[in-house]
């Protein structure tokens, strides 16, 4: 077990292996590991971001749904109010129309009545005269009694 040339050769061999590892092995493996670490970190960050985005989107969708529901409710409410209003208006219109028709009818009736009265008034004189002639059995001078008769007719 002498110390021999082996010692020197072993030193050189050792340094050569170290150099080889330094130049051709270590950097590539470490780089690959670092890069993978980075990729994984980025992936995790991205997934976290996506999760946040998803939550946000869900929140927004829920908000929109809520808004839509509110709006729909509002619209329905408005429609109902409008319907009630329309019915009310229709009723009022109908009532007004009815009143108007009634008014027209009444006017016509009045007119008819007046006309009948006029007609009667015209005939009453004749009838009265005829009646009086019959009662008096004498002819009455129409010309003399015209004023009297007209007065009578106007009183009817």
């Amino acid at each position: 077990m002498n110390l021999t040339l082996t010692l020197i050769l072993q030193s050189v061999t050792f340094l050569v292996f170290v150099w080889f590892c330094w130049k051709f092995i270590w950097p590539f493996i470490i780089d690959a590991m670092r890069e993978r670490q980075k990729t994984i970190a980025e992936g995790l960050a991205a997934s976290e971001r996506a999760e946040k985005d998803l939550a946000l989107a869900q929140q927004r969708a829920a908000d929109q749904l809520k808004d839509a529901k509110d709006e729909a409710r509002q619209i329905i409410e408005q429609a109902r109010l409008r319907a009630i209003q329309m019915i009310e208006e229709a009723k009022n219109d109908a009532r007004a129309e009815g009143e108007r028709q009634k008014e027209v009818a009444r006017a016509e009736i009045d007119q008819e009545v007046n006309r009948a009265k006029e007609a009667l008034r015209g005939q009453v004189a004749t009838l009265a005269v005829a009646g009086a002639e019959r009662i008096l059995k004498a002819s009455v001078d129409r010309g003399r009694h015209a004023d009297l008769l007209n007065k009578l007719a106007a009183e009817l």
Partner: protein
Amino acid sequence: MASGNPTTGEYIAHHLTNLTYGRHPDGTWGFAETQEQINAMGFWSINVDSMGWALLLGVTFCALFYAAARKATAGVPGGLQNFVETIVEFVDDLVASIFTHKNTLIAPMALTIFVWVFLMNLMDLIPVDWIPMLASALGVHYMKVVPTTDPNVTLGMALAVFVLMLYYSIKCKGVGGFFGELAFHPFPKWLAPLNLFLEGVTLLAKPLSLGLRLFGNMYAGEMIFILLVLLYTSWFWAPVGGLLQWGWAVFHVLIITLQAFIFAVLTVVYLAQAHDVPEDH
């Protein structure tokens, strides 16, 4: 084993002898046949088995991790990439918690040390006789399969770490700053020689303990495996030996991982100290 029935001592010695290629005293180069020849070679010899296995395992590490690195994708990783990334992340976290300076070399170095030393230690779990017997059948006399039981290997790595420590110390602190750190501590400046001696010992103890700790642990572990094999010589003790070897192997799984981890951590710690620029002087 080459010769019929070796004695216990021969068996152990055989297991602890490296396949050595070197310069014979007469100037020619060749494989050593005996321990005496190895001793005679002195410094100019190479432990072919240690170096071979270390290289093979180092290349295995590089090839495996390079295959993963080349196909590394930031997308869904495959099985190999998952496996490699687990280790890389473990080492990266470890280095990040110890080493706060800016130096891209440290983490890859810690990874190389951790995996390579672990693989070399792992050879200890292969039953001690398998590969030496196979080698013997192929005509190779000695074969020590666990590179980290060879102090040349562990101290060689520690030496490289030491060189890097010195390099970064001088780079970060400057020659003067580094010298000041060694000379003006822990006693006042006028005791500089004493300081230099103390700090020098401290400095040298770092790589020495780094290499010897790994070597000692693995050598002791290997020795216990070899000694337990000796129980196989008796029919009565063979099952006990087998059981003990199994138990020791289970325990050893912890040790080989721990030692690889400690070597890597201490390297990072020492290099972090080399980068530290003290503020109080």
